[in-house]
C-alpha cells in the first residue's frame, strides 16, 4: 500500500510542478508583452495623469478618441498629485519608459527640456492643421517653453484669486474692494468670523507640501516684497519682508482660519467653503468649477470673486498649468501626439462643454484664449472667467516680487532642489500654523535648508 502510494506520489509531483511552471511561463509571456490581447497594428499609449476632476472627465471622454482612432488604444495611470509627481519624475529621470505621455507642469517642463528628457513638440504642432499653437494664453505658453519651443502643451491653466460669499458680505454690509489688499482681507475675515465651532472668516491652505501651503504663501511672500534668494543666491528667508509675510499668513489662519488648518489643502478648503463653513477662500482659480457645482456645493450661485490680494506689488496671482509632454524614451511619439493634441485642442473644449455629464462649468479653463470667446462658456462662467484670464495674463514668473531674483516662478523656485526645499519649508510653516513652533523658528530652520541649496548655485 505504502509503496504504491509513494510511487503514485512520485509520479504526480513533477507533473503538477510541470503544469504550474507551464502556466507560469504562459502568464509571464503574456504580461511581459505588456498588452494582453492587443490586436495586430494597434498601438497602446500609456498616459500618466493627475487625478483631478478635469482629468477624470478627459478619461471618461477617451473612448470617443479610441473610436475615432482605431489604431490607438489608451491606458491611463491616474494618481493623486504627490504620487503622480514622484512617479513621473522617477520614471522620466531614469529613462524608465513606462509612459508615452506624462502630465507635468510649468515647474518641470523647462527643466526637463533642458535635460533632454522631453520631446520638442513644435514639429508636431506645425504638422497638425487647426491645432493653433498661438491660441494658448501667452504667459502659459511661455512657461512651457525652453529656448522658444514648447515641450509640453497645456491642458488647463490656473492663477489664484479670492472667493467670497456675496450673501454674507451683503448681510454684514461689507463691500469687497475691486483690488483688495491683504490687511483689508484680514480685517474682513475678523468681522465675518463667528468663532470656534462656527463659521470662520477665511480658508487658507496649511497642509505641508510645496504644492499645498507653499503655493498661496509664496504669493503672499512675493507681494509683501519677500523673496527666496537674492541675485547672488543668498537665501533670504529670514529677511524682514519674508518674516512679516509669513507671520501675517500664520496669524490670519490661526486667528480667523478654518479648523484643522495645518492639514487643510485645496480639497479640504473646497469642502469647507462648499459647505458654507468659511466666508472667504484664497486659492486656485480652478476651484470655481467645484464651488459653483450645485451637486457638490451648498453655496453655488452666492459666490463673488476678487483678484489675488496685494501689498507691495501691482498683482499677486500665481501661474500654474497642468500640461502634457512626451518623454524622449517613448517609441510611440506619433500616436502619443495624436491623443495629446486631441485632449488639448479647441474641439475638446467644445466636446466637454456639450457632454451632458461634464458641462460648460467644468471644461478645462486657462489654456486657450478661444475658450473665453465661447458664448456658452461666457454664460455659465461670466462671473469669474474674465478674472481668471486677467490673472493668468498678469502673472509674472520672471519678476514675481519687488526686488530682482535669480530664479523663475511665482509660487515656486524653478530649480530641481525646490521640491525638497519647498516641502521642508512647508513642513516648518505647517508646524507654525499648528502652533508647535514660532514663525521665527520655522523660518530660521528653513533658512538653513535654503542656504545649503543656494550654495550649490553660488559656485
Amino acid at each position, binding site marked *: 500500500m505504502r509503496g504504491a502510494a509513494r510511487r503514485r506520489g512520485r509520479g504526480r509531483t513533477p507533473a503538477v510542478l510541470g503544469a504550474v511552471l507551464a502556466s507560469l511561463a504562459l502568464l509571464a509571456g503574456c504580461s511581459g508583452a505588456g498588452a494582453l490581447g492587443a490586436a495586430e497594428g494597434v498601438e497602446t499609449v500609456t498616459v500618466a495623469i493627475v487625478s483631478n476632476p478635469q482629468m477624470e472627465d478627459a478619461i471618461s471622454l477617451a473612448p470617443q478618441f479610441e473610436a475615432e482612432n482605431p489604431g490607438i488604444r489608451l491606458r491611463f495611470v491616474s494618481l493623486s498629485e*504627490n504620487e503622480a509627481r*514622484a512617479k513621473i*519624475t*522617477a520614471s522620466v*529621470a*531614469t529613462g524608465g519608459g513606462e509612459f508615452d505621455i506624462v502630465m507635468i507642469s510649468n515647474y518641470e517642463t523647462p*527643466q526637463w527640456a533642458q*535635460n*533632454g528628457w522631453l520631446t520638442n513638440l513644435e514639429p508636431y504642432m506645425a504638422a497638425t492643421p487647426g491645432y493653433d499653437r498661438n491660441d494658448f494664453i501667452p504667459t502659459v505658453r511661455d512657461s512651457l517653453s525652453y529656448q522658444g519651443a514648447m515641450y509640453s502643451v497645456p491642458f488647463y491653466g490656473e492663477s489664484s484669486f479670492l472667493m467670497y460669499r456675496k450673501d454674507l458680505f451683503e448681510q454684514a454690509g461689507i463691500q469687497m474692494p475691486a483690488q483688495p489688499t491683504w490687511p483689508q482681507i484680514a480685517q474682513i475675515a475678523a468681522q465675518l468670523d463667528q468663532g*470656534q*465651532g462656527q463659521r470662520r472668516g477665511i480658508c487658507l491652505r*496649511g*497642509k*505641508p*507640501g510645496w504644492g499645498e501651503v507653499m503655493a498661496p504663501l509664496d504669493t503672499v511672500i512675493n507681494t509683501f516684497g519677500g523673496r527666496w534668494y537674492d541675485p547672488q543666491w543668498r537665501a533670504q528667508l529670514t529677511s524682514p519682508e519674508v518674516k512679516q509675510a509669513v507671520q501675517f499668513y500664520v496669524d490670519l489662519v490661526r486667528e480667523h482660519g478654518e*479648523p*484643522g*488648518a*495645518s*492639514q487643510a489643502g485645496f480639497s479640504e478648503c473646497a*469642502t*469647507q467653503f462648499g459647505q458654507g*463653513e468659511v466666508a472667504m477662500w484664497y486659492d486656485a482659480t480652478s476651484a470655481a468649477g467645484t464651488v459653483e457645482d450645485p451637486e457638490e456645493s451648498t453655496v453655488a450661485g452666492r459666490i463673488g470673486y476678487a483678484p489675488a490680494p496685494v501689498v507691495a506689488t501691482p498683482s499677486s496671482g500665481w501661474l500654474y498649468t497642468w500640461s502634457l509632454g512626451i518623454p524622449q524614451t517613448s517609441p510611440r511619439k506619433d500616436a502619443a501626439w495624436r491623443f495629446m493634441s486631441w485632449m488639448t485642442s479647441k474641439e475638446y473644449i467644445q466636446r466637454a462643454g456639450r457632454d451632458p455629464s461634464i458641462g460648460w462649468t467644468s471644461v478645462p479653463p486657462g489654456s486657450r484664449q478661444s475658450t473665453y470667446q465661447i458664448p456658452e462658456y461666457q454664460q455659465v462662467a461670466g462671473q469669474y472667467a474674465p478674472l481668471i484670464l486677467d490673472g493668468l495674463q498678469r502673472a509674472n514668473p520672471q519678476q514675481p516680487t519687488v526686488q530682482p531674483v535669480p530664479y523663475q516662478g511665482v509660487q515656486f523656485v524653478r530649480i*530641481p*532642489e525646490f*521640491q*525638497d526645499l519647498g*516641502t*521642508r519649508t512647508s*513642513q*516648518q510653516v*505647517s*508646524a507654525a*500654523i*499648528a502652533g*508647535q*513652533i514660532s514663525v521665527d523658528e*520655522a523660518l530660521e530652520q528653513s533658512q538653513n535648508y535654503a542656504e545649503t541649496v543656494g550654495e550649490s548655485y553660488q559656485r
Partner: protein
Amino acid sequence: MTATLEERPAAEANVGGAAMIDRAEGWRRRGPLLPALIFTIIVTQIPFILTLYYSLQSWNLVRPGSQEFVWFSNYGDVFADSQFRTVALNTVIMTLGSVLIAVVLGLLLALLLNRQFVGRGVVRTLLITPFLITPVAAALLWKTVLLDPTLGLINFVLSPFGLSGTEWISQYPLASVMAALIWQWTPFMMLLLLAGLQSMPTDQLEAARVDGASAWSTFRELTLPHLRRFIELGVVLGTIYLVNIFDQVYMMTQGGPGVASANLPFYIYQRAFLGFDIGQSAAMGVVVVILTLIAANFALRLIFKSFSGEQEAA
C-alpha cells in the same frame, strides 16, 4: 510551556546526531535550505549593496551629470541634520508605543474572549477585522471618517461633552497615527495571545483552583509565565512590521505638521522621491539599517534564546 519543553530532548538528540554526520550528508541536510537562502540573498542583499554604493555618491536624479564620488560626505550631512534625529526618536516612540499598547490591549481582549459568553465567535470576528483591512484603506478611514475635525465621528461622539472641535491630526499627529496602528495591531496581538491562552494545560488551572488560589495569583503565577513566549513573539513581530510602517504616515499626515509624525521610512522616502537626492537618502538608509541591526541583534538573540529553547552550545 511544559508540554513543549518535554519534547525538546527529542529534537536535541537530533542535533547531537547532526554533529557526527559526514560532509555529503551535511550537504544533503543543508540542501533544502539553499534555494530559500539564495533567493533571499539575491532579493534583499543585492539592492542593499547598491544602496551602500550610492551612499558614497553625490547624486541628484533630476540634475543630470551631478553624479560623483564623494566618500562619506553624505553621512556627515545625515548626522548634522537635526530633523533626522527628531524623526529617529519619532520612529522609536511610534514603534515601541504602538507595540506595547497593542500588546496590553490585546492581552485584555484575549482574556475577555477566553471565556464563554453568548456570541463569542461573532465578537472575535468583529475584533479581528481591523487587522485584515488594507492599511491604505484603514489610514483613509482614520483620517477622514474618524478624525476629521468637522465631519469626523470622534468629534461628533465627543460633542455632547463639550469637547468638539479638536483637530486631532494637527494637534496630536503622532498619537493619531499611533491610534490607527494600534487599532490594526491589537487584533493581531489578541489572536496570538488567545492562542497562547487556549494552549494552557487545563489540569494545571484546575489544580490551582482546587488549591483555592485566587484568580489574580493564578493569572500571575500560571497564566503570565505561560504567555511569556507569546508576548515576546508578539513584540518581535509587531516591532518588525511597525518599525517599517509607511502607509499610515503617508496617507494620514504626510509626516506633518513639520516632522512631528514622520518616521524614518517616510523621511527617507521624501528625500528620495521629493528631493531625488539619491546619495543622501541611501546614506540615511544605511544608517537606519545599521542602527536597526544593532538593536535587533540584541533583542532577537535575547528572545531567540527563550523562544526556541535551544542552546547554541548543543
